[in-house]
């Protein structure tokens, strides 16, 4: 099977797009109220050790992604079962993100268009991208990234007159419970979701490069999230942040430069669609790879069409309304994602570490950092 090579830069871009993906439009970390910035920072700090574990697993087994590692160290039957679970997680995550976008477009822009239309279009696009392969997704990420950075910088610049620091006061007052709870939610969505990347990338050599890539993506993506949610909070205040489904949209609506530059909400769509498409196609790609591995197939693209159609049906029937979507995100998702984001990787790491050591003593570290992921 042909191995797909991504450069260091491409993976970082993909990680950033993946992290910002749907997070930027949804009301994340509402429990922290005005201290949302603290919750984001705490969540990033919490994610760093997990990301180190992810990177370590990948570099322990060069030339292999998570699926192949599972098979190698857990045996064919158990490994494939775990892979099936991971594929199911990626499949569900993809449906969730797809649903978020469908709801976003449906609620804010096109209330009369059936929810299925934007979803089916995004789904078909992700299906096509997956059929074309990871390199295509990565290259599209390279194109989207500067556009998103420009659009976000533009939005932030024009939002500055509306920022009011009073909306972030009082800082850190008897709110530790809320901050921790919000940080946990932010940990599971979006930061630790980067576990998906383990299913699609691999380290070519035993190097520290994987760690660097993962950390760079996490920190830059986290910084974008930090900036965006904090400024949104400072524009609309904790009460309205909590009360709305799509706070960023509400905040950008307030932009009005000299009665001339206004109604630029479409920029939020731009960011959301580009980043969201990347997230959807990466999840979908991971799901295809995972299922094909679990079924013992060598190739994955033949699964794209049937899985894509299934994906669409799954996403379209996932929730009846926006409230259910919000409730799932705030109450259930944390527990649903925990085994995939924390428990399984930790077990794999320990098992992998022991097995590698038993085989060849302490794993040597290659100093050659120019590795391809």
């Amino acid at each position, binding site marked *: 099977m042909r191995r797909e090579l991504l450069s260091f830069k491409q993976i970082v871009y993909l990680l950033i797009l993946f992290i910002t993906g749907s997070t930027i439009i949804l009301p994340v970390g509402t429990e922290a109220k005005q201290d949302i910035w603290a919750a984001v920072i705490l969540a990033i700090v919490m994610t760093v050790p997990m990301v180190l574990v992810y990177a370590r697993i990948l570099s322990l087994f060069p030339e292999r992604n998570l699926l192949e590692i599972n098979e190698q160290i857990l045996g064919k039957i158990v490994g494939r079962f775990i892979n099936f679970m991971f594929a199911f997680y990626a499949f569900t995550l993809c449906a969730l993100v797809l649903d978020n976008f469908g709801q976003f477009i449906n*609620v*804010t*822009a*096109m*209330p*009369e*268009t*059936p929810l299925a*239309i934007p979803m089916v279009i995004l789904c078909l696009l992700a299906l096509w991208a997956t059929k074309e392969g990871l390199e295509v997704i990565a290259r599209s990420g390279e194109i989207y990234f500067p556009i998103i950075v420009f659009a976000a910088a533009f939005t932030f610049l024009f939002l500055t007159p509306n920022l009011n620091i*009073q909306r972030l*006061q*009082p800082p850190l*007052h*008897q709110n530790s419970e809320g901050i921790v709870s919000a940080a946990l939610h932010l940990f599971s969505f979006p930061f630790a979701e980067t576990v998906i990347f383990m299913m699609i990338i691999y380290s070519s050599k035993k190097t520290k490069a994987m760690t660097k890539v993962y950390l760079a993506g996490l920190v830059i993506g986290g910084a974008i999230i930090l900036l965006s949610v904090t400024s949104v909070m400072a524009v*609309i*205040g904790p*009460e*309205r942040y909590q*009360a709305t489904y799509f706070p960023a949209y*509400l905040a950008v*609506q*307030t932009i*009005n430069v000299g*009665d001339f530059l*206004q109604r630029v909400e479409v920029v939020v769509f731009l960011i959301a669609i580009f980043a969201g498409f990347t997230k959807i196609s990466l999840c979908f790609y991971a799901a295809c790879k995972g299922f094909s591995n679990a079924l013992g197939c060598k190739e994955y693209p033949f699964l794209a069409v049937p899985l894509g159609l299934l994906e669409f049906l799954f996403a379209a029937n996932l929730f009846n309304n926006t409230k259910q979507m919000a409730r799932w995100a705030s109450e259930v998702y944390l527990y649903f994602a925990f085994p995939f984001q924390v428990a399984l990787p930790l077990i794999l790491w320990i098992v992998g570490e022991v097995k590698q050591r038993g085989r060849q003593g302490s794993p040597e570290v290659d100093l050659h950092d120019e590795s391809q992921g």
Partner: protein
Amino acid sequence: MKKSACVLLVIWHLFVLWSMAGCWNFREIRDLAVVIGASFDKKDDQIYLTVEVLNPKGGEQDRGTSGSLGIKPQLFEGSGKTVFEAVRNMISKVGRKLYWSHARVFIVSEDVAKEGIIQIIDWINRDAEVRPQTWILVSKGQAAGDILRTRSKLFDTVSMQIDTLLRSQGNSGKLLAVTVGDFMEEMQKPGVGAVAPTVESMKDEREQIPEVTGSALFREERLVGFLNGEETMYLLFLRNQMKKGTLIAATADHPKANVSLEVFRSHTIKTVRLVDDRPVVDIWIDCLTGIAEISKENDVISERGSQKLTERTNERLQNKITDTIKKVQKEYGTDVFGFGNLIYRERPDIWGTIPKGGWSKVFPTVGTNVNVNIMLRGSAKLSEPTRVGE
């Protein structure tokens, strides 16, 4: 084969692009009824909605006074149990679906506001088409629909006049312009009461015209009272929203002689402290002004004169502001100045000792200490008071 397939594909794409461009919700502008302003009244449990709809067929021959586009607004009335029902019932009268994204003002009648404004403002905030940047006003003493029924002399529609007025409210200093979004935030925020400007229809040269003056004070979601234009000015000072305006100051020598001061810039700092377990708010107002008018022949420009003038103005302003605070504390009991929010933001420890929902009881007992510091910058074009020859 390959080439012809390519050509076919290109033709197919062109066909699709040309014929299917646009979205599902595709609406031609001529199919829309663009709402520019709306008012909400209530009678017998029915919400009466009056909308000002732009008639895009204005035409050249109708071109009105200067600056006007010659657009003739049309008024429609509808009713329903809820706002949304009223909006949808309207379709049968208007003939087109109302388009709300360009609405500039929403006027709520005093009666509805007294009953509770959530029944109106929830729909405004929830609907995807309505923008939270729309102005909200309260009609004082009359039906909100009557405001839209007045005639604007310079503008095409009443809503446009009110919109322009509120956007340039900085020049009068007696108006507090509030958008629906800001109103929502203030209503939900701890320790602050929401405010909206009031509008009345006034007789001016035989015609009824709209006049925006003063402000309406809300406690929670209910209207509890009004402030007149002058009191609104003090409210602006207290909220640190004063930009430009006119102050009137009396001089010391002649009690009847007035000096008008124009405010260029103003900044208010509020801090809170505890005195005997009672919160006391210290307010410092720094105000940069210039002399705009002197109505008697007395000297207020020389060093001694201007010092006297500022001293007197400071004292007068302090008293007036304190009186306004006392009035609101005693009569309305709603914290439109945001003292509670100040305590919440800067002294959350004090805020924590107040039981939930108990701020309205504490607010009337809050002590205040107002310090005004007027600074004079010049006296416009003339360097001396106007003198009379012998």
